[in-house]
């Protein structure tokens, strides 16, 4: 499965002229309004998408979006009132005396902002427990996914009903729709932050700690998660695909992944093992059991190569094998450009076929 939303763009930036100075004639005015409309359209368009907190697919993200719009509308109303009063005051013929001015300052400058800020603060902190639900005892019964933030990829380990590791994957999180899932977040190296904007708020991933985050997807779909804490040269590529699946399809997928057989293409696997890839990478059902790099079982169905850097095509996989740090600066995988081109292409085809 290739997800072009990870690397493509649904919403092209609009190149418009900047209007500086006075609008002198009607043609200029028309262009000005057209540019304004295009800007508004591009702003509205940017509200949607697989990584937009304003296009929620879960209850926590919905609360965040409502909070955002409440603050925007509240801020816009206050700004309009202030500018309106400013215009009114500048047009008034007679001046205010000192007593009237003091009263205006007291009511409009002290009492009104104090009440408005107090109300907005109360609303925001009242929402917080809803945005971070499920701490404590309730978590013990939730489906658990262990996520480790590595430099610069995500190790994702699914637990079975007994609480032991069922299988591992990387840079892709699959969750069943309508079920709350507990993410246990750890890091072996530096601080990262795990964030799926369409499902909820972010949570820091801190070395030496296990942070918990619960999320629930309400709409099936493919979304995008990111690392939201600068963690090194390839921080910006540390994105991952989130697939919210219907519960039946999710169960089928977990069963298929738990019994995944990566040995179907014997020739490709032989080259993979011969060139030492298995020292760092694991593939279920084969001798490859490395744990330094991402587990590559089911790699062919992932949304991207090099985490969020390239679309998952055979050519891009080959490109990544030749020189990973050209695509993902700071990646720990060495370059393999010394391998014969036919071997690189064969390994790329093997990896693409792991579905």
């Amino acid at each position, binding site marked *: 499965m290739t997800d072009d939303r990870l690397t493509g763009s649904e919403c092209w930036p609009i190149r418009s002229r900047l209007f500086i100075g006075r609008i002198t004639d009607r043609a200029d005015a028309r262009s000005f309004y057209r540019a304004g409309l295009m800007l508004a359209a591009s702003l509205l368009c940017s509200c949607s998408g697989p990584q937009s907190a304003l296009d929620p697919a879960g209850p926590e993200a919905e609360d965040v979006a409502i909070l955002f719009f409440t603050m925007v509308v509240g801020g816009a109303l206050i700004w309009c009132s202030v500018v309106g009063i400013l215009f009114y005051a500048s047009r008034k013929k007679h001046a205010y005396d000192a007593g009237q001015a003091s009263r205006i300052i007291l009511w409009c400058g*002290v009492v009104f902002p104090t009440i408005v800020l*107090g109300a907005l603060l109360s609303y925001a902190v009242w929402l917080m*427990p809803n945005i971070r639900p499920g*701490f404590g005892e309730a978590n013990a019964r939730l489906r658990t996914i262990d996520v480790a933030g590595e430099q610069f990829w995500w190790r994702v380990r699914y637990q079975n009903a007994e609480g032991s590791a069922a299988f591992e994957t990387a840079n892709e999180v699959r969750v069943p729709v309508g079920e709350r899932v507990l993410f246990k977040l750890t890091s072996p190296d530096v601080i990262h932050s795990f964030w799926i904007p369409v499902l909820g708020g972010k949570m820091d991933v801190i070395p030496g700690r296990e942070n918990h985050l619960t999320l629930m997807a309400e709409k099936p779909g493919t979304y995008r998660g990111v690392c939201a804490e600068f963690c090194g040269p390839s921080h910006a590529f540390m994105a991952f695909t989130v697939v919210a699946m219907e519960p039946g399809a999710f169960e089928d997928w977990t069963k298929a992944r738990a019994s995944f057989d990566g040995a179907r293409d014997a020739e490709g696997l032989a080259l993979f093992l011969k060139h030492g890839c298995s020292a760092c990478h694991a593939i279920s059902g084969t001798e490859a059991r490395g744990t330094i790099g991402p587990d590559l079982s089911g790699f062919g169905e992932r949304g991207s190569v090099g985490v969020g850097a390239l679309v998952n095509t055979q050519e891009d996989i080959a490109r990544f094998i030749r020189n990973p740090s050209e695509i993902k600066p700071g990646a720990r995988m060495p370059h393999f450009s010394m391998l014969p081109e036919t071997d690189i292409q064969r390994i790329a085809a093997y990896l693409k076929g792991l579905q």
Partner: protein
Amino acid sequence: MKSVIPREVETLWTLFTAPVVWAVHFLVCYVGFAVYCAKALSLHLSFDAVRIGLGVFTLLALAMIVLSAYLAWRQWGYGTGDPPHDAPTRQDRKHFQGFATLLLSGLSFIAVLYMAIPMIFIAECQR
């Protein structure tokens, strides 16, 4: 009979009283919850007990700020003169300080209230 309220003393410390109460309240709330969350298992205290305790402390802090505001109001001459009190006289200096203290007390009162709002809604320790 001796008055409960202190005699009028002209010192800069009266100016600082309310912000100091605000700072102490801020620290006690943050440190109080942090210590509780770190030691909750051995303290045998419920979260609501800490919440109520800090709520009572908030009321005490607000009372101290109101007292500071009253003293400042008295120093300002109960608002008999209008600001800016910028004449080079002892009386104006006293009124200016009283007025500034009153405004600072108002700011500190609001700040303590805002600090207390999250304590009403905070749900539990995150581990």
